[in-house]
């Protein structure tokens, strides 16, 4: 075997912490810290999809998971541009900060954006507003139509298996029928790093490159890679009111009602979703490091803390996945 030439350092090694070391016979130190392993896996998945599917799309909500996915996509295909468009399901109740962030990113990286608008479905009478004003369940139809109309055959989602019980069994490649439905018994076993993306016309595959990441991994990666995020992830002063144990932001979507007094709080968001069902948490964390420290000692999961829609029933997520939810 050829003797290994041992360069003194990769540039990256200079800044990498000295964890996860492995020394080869030649005295060479090869590190595989968890974030590098996760990043490499994510890039591998994105390249597989770009190579094997005809029309992939990346679901971009402006949330931290989709920001990390986009970052991975930029890394995977550099120096070429990201070879697929983004799709955003706009509930009409999105945080304005997040929309501004989305638009700036699309412009800066010369991306193509497809918007599926819940509001236009409501305006045209194809969907009816729910009594409780929550629009998350209304996203399914515009999402599926967006996929069908654009003939997207692979749809990248930022879902992570640590988020919720029903997601723990989700595959990295998740086959959906022509109604976008997820059937746990029809999912294919996934072995090694081999993914089977074969599907019939009209079907598509949801692909989750962050499957093996946890919330903490995402934040550590955001910090390491200096991934930019919408400002609402960090502590800011905001008028909020309490409903079902969550701090919600007022807006045209239907709050506050009588008996829901507004209070000024220092808050941040752990997830970014529809304003009607995404709660803020009281927080003074104004930097990524603060947020990581806060999460590391948090005693509540991010969905439990901030998503009203998951509290509806124990099987809430399972049901929505079956219907074609992310």
């Amino acid at each position: 075997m050829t003797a290994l030439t041992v360069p003194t350092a990769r540039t990256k090694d200079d800044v990498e912490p000295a964890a996860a070391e492995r020394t080869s016979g030649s005295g060479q130190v090869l590190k595989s810290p968890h974030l590098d392993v996760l990043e490499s896996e994510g890039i591998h998945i994105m390249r597989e999809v770009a190579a094997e599917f005809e029309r992939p799309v990346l679901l971009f909500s402006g949330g931290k998971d989709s920001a990390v996915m986009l970052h991975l996509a930029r890394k995977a295909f550099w120096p070429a541009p990201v070879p697929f468009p983004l799709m955003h399901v706009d509930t009409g109740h999105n945080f304005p900060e997040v929309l501004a962030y989305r638009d700036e990113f699309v412009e800066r990286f010369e991306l193509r954006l497809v918007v599926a608008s819940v509001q236009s479905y409501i305006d045209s009478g194809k969907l009816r507003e729910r009594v409780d004003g929550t629009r998350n369940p209304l996203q399914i139809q515009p999402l599926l139509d967006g996929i069908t109309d654009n003939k997207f055959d692979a749809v990248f989602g930022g879902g992570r298996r640590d988020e919720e019980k029903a997601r723990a069994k989700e595959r990295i490649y998740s086959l959906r029928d022509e109604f976008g439905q997820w059937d746990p018994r029809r999912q294919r076993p996934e072995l090694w790093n081999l993914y089977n993306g074969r599907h019939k016309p009209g079907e598509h595959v949801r692909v989750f490159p962050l499957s093996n990441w946890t919330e903490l991994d995402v934040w550590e990666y955001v910090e390491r890679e200096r991934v930019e995020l919408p400002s609402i992830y960090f502590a800011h002063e905001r008028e909020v009111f309490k409903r079902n144990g969550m701090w919600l932001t007022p807006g045209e979507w239907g709050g506050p009602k009588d008996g829901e007094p507004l209070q000024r709080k220092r808050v941040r968001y752990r997830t970014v979703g529809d304003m009607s069902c995404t709660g803020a948490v009281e927080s003074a964390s104004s930097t990524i490091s603060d947020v990581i420290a806060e999460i590391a000692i948090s005693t509540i999961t991010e969905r439990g803390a901030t998503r009203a829609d998951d509290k509806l029933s124990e099987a809430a997520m399972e049901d929505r996945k079956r219907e074609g939810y992310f």
Partner: protein
Amino acid sequence: MKGISKVTSVLEPEGLAPRLDRDVEMLRFATAGSVDDGKSTLVGRLLHDSKSVLADTLEAVERASRDRGSDGMELALLTDGLRAEREQGITIDVAYRYFTTARRKFVLADTPGHVQYTRNMVTGASTAELVVILIDARKGVVEQTRRHLAVAALLGVRHLVLAVNKMDLVDFDQSVFAAIAADFAAAAEGLGVVDHTVIPVSALAGDNVVEPSAAMPWYSGPTLLEHLETVEVGIDAAGQQVRFPVQYVIRSADYRGYAGQLAAGVLSVGDDVVVLPSGLRTVVVGIDTFDNPVDFAYAPQSITVRLADELDVGRGDLLVRPGEEPRIVREFEATVCQLSDRPLAAGDRVLVKHTTRVVKAVVDQVNYRLDIETLGRDEAADSLSLNEIGGITLRIAAPLAVDDYAHDRLTGSFLVIDEHDGQTLAAGLVGDPITSATSAAGADAP
């Protein structure tokens, strides 16, 4: 848009703190054992005692435990995912769990013990570096244990742990444990498993799972978590031959690079390489990443390689160093585990997905069916059904560069796919990993 703070605000000075010194190693492991052995309880205990379960999840489990009429908390409910499973009290598929300690990040493939055990365990073990096999101290090493052991050995899992559970039900008796440990050692060594550890635990009470047990002073080894935190992980990439499957060609202006994830070895700028299956030779002139060009890269990094010559290189090609070439085959023998309820038989036309290449193939013949408990081979078998493991010969429509699975997990594995409905029919391992392992074990014996 008034009042919207600037997007980049998060990157202002305080956001530019140096990277945290918190990158840790990652261990992927799998668990095998049945509900009766207390596997869900053990996994629940591991998550609970390593403080990986947050308050709202615990509350939900407590509530569900009460609804089911239990006193206290059923830890097993922490890991039951789907409603269908909760209603039937079974686990139907591999579930992935995540927890982190100060020392490591863990990815746990939790595989059910009884329903479709082989299919699920093969799936879980394919990415695992370690498998925890769980048994009931009252029953000892049983047929199922041997099955789990054989599957782990077949899949090339490097580290095995036997967790002898329910020690409380045998009065924490050292002699019971010692007898089981000896049985297991004999079975593991017979399969060529070089590294195995046996730990006496009580998942229900938590003894030796995360905290050392006060009831078993005779045991001085690590707790299960301590072992998981300290067992050596990662492949010695530098000791392996280079295997770089080309995934995707990146073109931009005058740039042409071959993107992929190194399956094995260390690839350096200046290395001579052979492109397989064409056999063309060239030199690596650059290894690029988004962050910066590097002088060398190692598995499992995702990189982009630039080559000296303009060759016809594309997805499905494999770059290796000269003198280290794998076999180029049009026909090969393999061990397969049938994952589909449709049986595999001679004459079946299928697709084979190997690294980044998909080729048409025909099952030339089924050579034998393996009895996973006795390792006996039924050579009269002419088909393989769901959960069965056996040997087949495949003829393929285009040459493939393959390694034996026992030599390289990623260039020695493949999927068998149904050409018509696209389902994954079988997991394939090139060669005969069980015989390789057992004969190696025999050769090492004094």
